C-alpha cells in the first residue's frame, strides 16, 4: 500500500467558488492509503509546492495526488516538485477538478461530490503507480521549414543565424510567397518587394540555409529531435547548376497561354517560366502540362536557344531524404474561391476582382504595368467600389466563420493609394465594421477618410449587376441612413476571405499535427504556447496557424524559430516513459499490435522459452521505446492482454473506474 498525500487546490476562486474544498479534504482524509490531506489557495505557487515537499518528508509519502487544473497545465510542475522531494516524478497523479469539474458545474453540492469522486479515482491509480524512468533520444541539429513565404524565410533566417542548418521546402518555383505578390504594405506603404527581396537574397546566400524550390514534402517519419523526411524535388527540366537565368528561353517559348499563377490569372505566362523577375532561384521550370515538347514531342525551342545547355527534358523527380530535429510549418494562405457568391458577379465580369488581384493590377510588374484600368476594356475607372467581408464572418456554409483580419487595413491602403495616384477616381468602401487594432492602424484608416476623401458607407453590398454599357450596378445598404442605395461603378474590388493553403491538410496528416475545422493548424495552448503544435517538435509560423498581417507573421516566425532553436540546442531529449510494454509470456505473436501502431514502434523477435519443461521458440512483440508515443492503440487491440501501457496500465484504468463507480 502506498502512503499517499492529497493536495486540493482552490485555484483562487476558480475551483473554490464551485467546489467545497474543505469538505473534499474532510472526506478524502478518511480514504484508505491517504496519509496526508490538505488544501491550499494556489498549489502551483512556490508556497504550494513547498507544502508537497514538506509533507513528503514529514509523512514519508510514496505517492502524490494533486486535485487541481488539467494535467496539461501543471502536471509537469508537480512532477518536478515530487522529484525535488525525492520521489519518482511518475508517482504523481492529477485529479482535474477545474476543467472537468468546477468550470462546468454550477451546483456546489454536485461539483463537490464529483471532485471527491475524481480524487478517489486518482488515489486508486496512484496506489498502482510504479516508478518510471525516461529514456534518452538524440537531437538532429537541423531544422526543416515547410513553406518559403515571409513566415518561412524569417524562421529559416533566425534559426540559421543561431548557427543551425535549415532547409526550406517551397512548392512553387520561387520563394517569396504571398508577400511577393503584394504591391505596397500597410501602414507605412513601403513597397513589398523592396523589403522582401533582400530577405529572399539573404536566405539564398546564407551558408546554413538550403532552399528546395519546386519541391514538396513526401513523407515524414520519426519523432521530436529525430524526424526523417523525404523531399520530392519535382523535375524542373532545367539544370540548376548550368542555367544562368538569362531568360531567353521564356522569351522564345511559343506556348504562352497558361494563366500566370503569380498574377492571379490576370495575364498569361510561357510554359517555361520563372514566376516573377526577382524569383529566387532565378532558374525557370518547364510546366510540362503546357509545354509543346512534352505534349507533342515537337518544339524544343528552349533547348535550342539555351546557350548554357541547361534544358533537360529527361529530368525526373528526385527524392532527397534528410534528418531533422525540428519542423516548422509555414504553409501560408490563399483567398477562397468565389463560386458560391454569384451576387457579386465575380465570374461574370472581369471588372469585379479580388483585393489580391488588385495588388497585381497596382503593381508596376503586374499585368497592367501598374496602371489602374478596367480589365475588360482598359479604360480608366471613374468610380471604384470596395466590398468588405466577402466570405469572412459568415456562418452560412458559403464562407468562413472567422474574420480574415487583414482586409480592413489593405482596403484602406488600396483606397488611399488610388486616391493619391488618381485624385479623379471616386472610391467608396462598404463595410460592416472597420477593425483596425494595431500600432498606427486606426490613424491609417482615418487618414484614408479624412485626408484622401474615401467614402466609407456602413452596410453590405447585396448585389453587383453588370450593365449593357459595361458599368457595374452596385446595390447596397446604407444602414446609418436607413437607405438602400444603387450606384454605378467601373470596378468592384472584393475583400475576399483568406483560408489556409490547400496543401496544409496533407502536410498536417504527415506530421500528425492537429488542424481545426477551418484547416488552421492548432497551437498547443491558445495563449501560452501559441507557436507550438501539440505534436512535439512541430512549430507553427504565419497564417497556417490563423489570419495575420506581415508584422505579426514576422514576429511569430521569430517565435517559432526560438522554439526550434531551444530544441536544437539540446544534445539529448528525455523520452516519455509512458510507453507500451509487451509481456512476452502472454504474447502469441499475432501481429495485431504492429498493424495498428501508427508510429511503427513494434517489431517481432523469436525467443527461446521454457514452458513447463518444454523448450520452444516463440515469436513475440517488442516495443521500441524511442518510437512509441504511448497512444495505447496496441493495448486495446491486443487479443491476449499482453500489451500494456506503462503509467496507464489496464489495472490502473480499471482501478480508476472502480473508484468512480464505488
Amino acid at each position, binding site marked *: 500500500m502506498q502512503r499517499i498525500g492529497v493536495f486540493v487546490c482552490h485555484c483562487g476562486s476558480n475551483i473554490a467558488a464551485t467546489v467545497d474544498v474543505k469538505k473534499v479534504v474532510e472526506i478524502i482524509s478518511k480514504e484508505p492509503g491517504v496519509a496526508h490531506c490538505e488544501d491550499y489557495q494556489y498549489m502551483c505557487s512556490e508556497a504550494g509546492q513547498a507544502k508537497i515537499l514538506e509533507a513528503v518528508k514529514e509523512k514519508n509519502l510514496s505517492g502524490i495526488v494533486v486535485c487541481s487544473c488539467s494535467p496539461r497545465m501543471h502536471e509537469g510542475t508537480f512532477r518536478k516538485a515530487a522529484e525535488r522531494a525525492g520521489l519518482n516524478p511518475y508517482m504523481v497523479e492529477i485529479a482535474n477538478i477545474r476543467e472537468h469539474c468546477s468550470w462546468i458545474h454550477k451546483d456546489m453540492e454536485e461539483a463537490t461530490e464529483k471532485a471527491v469522486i475524481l480524487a478517489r479515482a486518482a488515489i486508486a491509480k496512484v496506489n498502482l503507480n510504479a516508478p518510471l524512468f525516461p529514456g534518452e533520444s538524440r537531437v538532429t541539429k537541423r531544422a526543416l521549414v515547410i513553406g518559403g513565404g515571409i513566415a518561412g524565410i524569417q524562421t529559416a533566417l533566425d534559426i540559421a543565424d543561431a548557427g543551425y542548418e535549415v532547409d526550406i521546402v517551397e512548392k512553387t518555383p520561387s520563394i517569396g510567397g504571398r508577400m511577393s505578390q503584394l504591391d505596397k504594405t500597410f501602414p507605412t506603404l513601403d513597397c513589398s518587394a523592396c523589403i522582401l527581396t533582400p530577405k529572399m537574397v539573404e536566405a539564398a546566400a546564407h551558408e546554413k540555409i538550403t532552399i528546395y524550390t519546386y519541391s514538396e514534402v513526401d513523407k515524414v517519419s520519426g519523432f521530436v529531435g529525430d524526424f526523417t523526411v523525404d523531399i520530392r524535388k519535382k523535375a524542373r527540366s532545367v539544370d540548376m547548376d548550368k542555367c544562368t537565368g538569362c531568360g531567353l528561353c521564356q522569351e522564345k517559348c511559343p506556348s504562352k497561354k497558361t494563366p500566370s499563377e503569380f498574377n492571379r490569372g490576370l495575364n498569361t505566362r510561357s510554359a517555361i517560366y520563372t514566376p516573377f523577375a526577382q524569383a529566387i532561384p532565378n532558374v525557370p521550370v518547364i510546366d510540362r502540362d503546357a509545354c509543346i515538347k512534352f505534349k507533342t514531342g515537337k518544339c524544343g525551342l528552349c533547348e535550342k536557344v539555351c546557350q548554357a545547355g541547361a534544358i533537360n527534358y529527361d529530368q525526373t523527380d528526385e527524392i532527397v531524404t534528410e534528418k531533422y530535429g525540428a519542423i516548422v510549418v509555414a504553409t501560408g494562405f490563399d483567398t477562397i474561391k468565389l463560386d458560391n457568391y454569384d*451576387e457579386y458577379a465575380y465570374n461574370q465580369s472581369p471588372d469585379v476582382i479580388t483585393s489580391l488581384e488588385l495588388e497585381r493590377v497596382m503593381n508596376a510588374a503586374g499585368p497592367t504595368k501598374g496602371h489602374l484600368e478596367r480589365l475588360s476594356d482598359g479604360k480608366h475607372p471613374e468610380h471604384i467600389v470596395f466590398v468588405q*467581408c466577402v466570405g469572412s*464572418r*459568415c*456562418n*452560412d456554409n*458559403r*464562407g468562413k466563420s472567422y474574420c480574415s483580419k487583414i482586409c480592413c487595413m489593405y482596403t484602406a491602403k488600396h483606397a488611399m493609394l488610388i486616391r493619391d495616384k488618381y485624385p479623379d477616381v471616386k472610391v467608396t468602401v462598404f463595410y*460592416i465594421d472597420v477593425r483596425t487594432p494595431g500600432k498606427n492602424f486606426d490613424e491609417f484608416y482615418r487618414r484614408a477618410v479624412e485626408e484622401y476623401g474615401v467614402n466609407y458607407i*456602413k*452596410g*453590405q*453590398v*447585396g*448585389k453587383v449587376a453588370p450593365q449593357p454599357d459595361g458599368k457595374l450596378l452596385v*446595390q*447596397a*445598404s446604407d*444602414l446609418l441612413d*436607413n437607405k*438602400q442605395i444603387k450606384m454605378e461603378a467601373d470596378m468592384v474590388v472584393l475583400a475576399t476571405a483568406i483560408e489556409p493553403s490547400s496543401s496544409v491538410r496533407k502536410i498536417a496528416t504527415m506530421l500528425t499535427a492537429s488542424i481545426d475545422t477551418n484547416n488552421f493548424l492548432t497551437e498547443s495552448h491558445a495563449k501560452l504556447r501559441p507557436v507550438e503544435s501539440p505534436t512535439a517538435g512541430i512549430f507553427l509560423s504565419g497564417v497556417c496557424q490563423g489570419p495575420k498581417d506581415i508584422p505579426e507573421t514576422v514576429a511569430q516566425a521569430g517565435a517559432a524559430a526560438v522554439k526550434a532553436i531551444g530544441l536544437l540546442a539540446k544534445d539529448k531529449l528525455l523520452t516519455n516513459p509512458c510507453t507500451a510494454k509487451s509481456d512476452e509470456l502472454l504474447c502469441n505473436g499475432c501481429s495485431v499490435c504492429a498493424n495498428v501502431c501508427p508510429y511503427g514502434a513494434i517489431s517481432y523477435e523469436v525467443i527461446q522459452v521454457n514452458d513447463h519443461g518444454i523448450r520452444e521458440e516463440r515469436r513475440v512483440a517488442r516495443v521500441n521505446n524511442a518510437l512509441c508515443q504511448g497512444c495505447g492503440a496496441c493495448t486495446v487491440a491486443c487479443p491476449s492482454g499482453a500489451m500494456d501501457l506503462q503509467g496507464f496500465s489496464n489495472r490502473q484504468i480499471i482501478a480508476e473506474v472502480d473508484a468512480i463507480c464505488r
Partner: protein
Amino acid sequence: MSHGANKAEKIKEISGVNPLRCMKCGKCSATCPAFDEMDIKPHQFVSYVINDDIEALTSSKSLWKCLSCFACIERCPRDVKPGKLIDAARQLVVREKGADYLKADEIPELLDEELPQQLLVSAFRRYRR
C-alpha cells in the same frame, strides 16, 4: 412572460431563426427588391424580434410588401434570414382568427383578367389560415 415576448418566441419557433446571430451587415436590405415599399426595413426586423416589439411588426406595411423572393434568405451571411422572420410574423397574423389579411368573400373583388388564377390561390393559401 409578457404577451409580446410570447409572440417573439413564437416567431423564433416558427422561423427557426436565432436573431441574435445577426451582425448587422445590412445585406438583407441591400438585396431586397421591395425595400422602397417597406416602412420597417428587412434588417430592422431582427431588432424588432429581439426587442419583443411584435405589434409594430405585425401592423407594419412591410409584412405584406415582402415578396418572399428569398433573396435575403439566400444571401444572409449569418444564417439569420430576415425573410423567414417576416414570413413567421405573417403566419402569426393569419393564425389569429379574424385577422386574416385575405378573406374568401373579398376574392371576387380582386379578380382581374390579367391576374393568373394561380396567384390568387397561392395568396389565399398564404394569407389565410
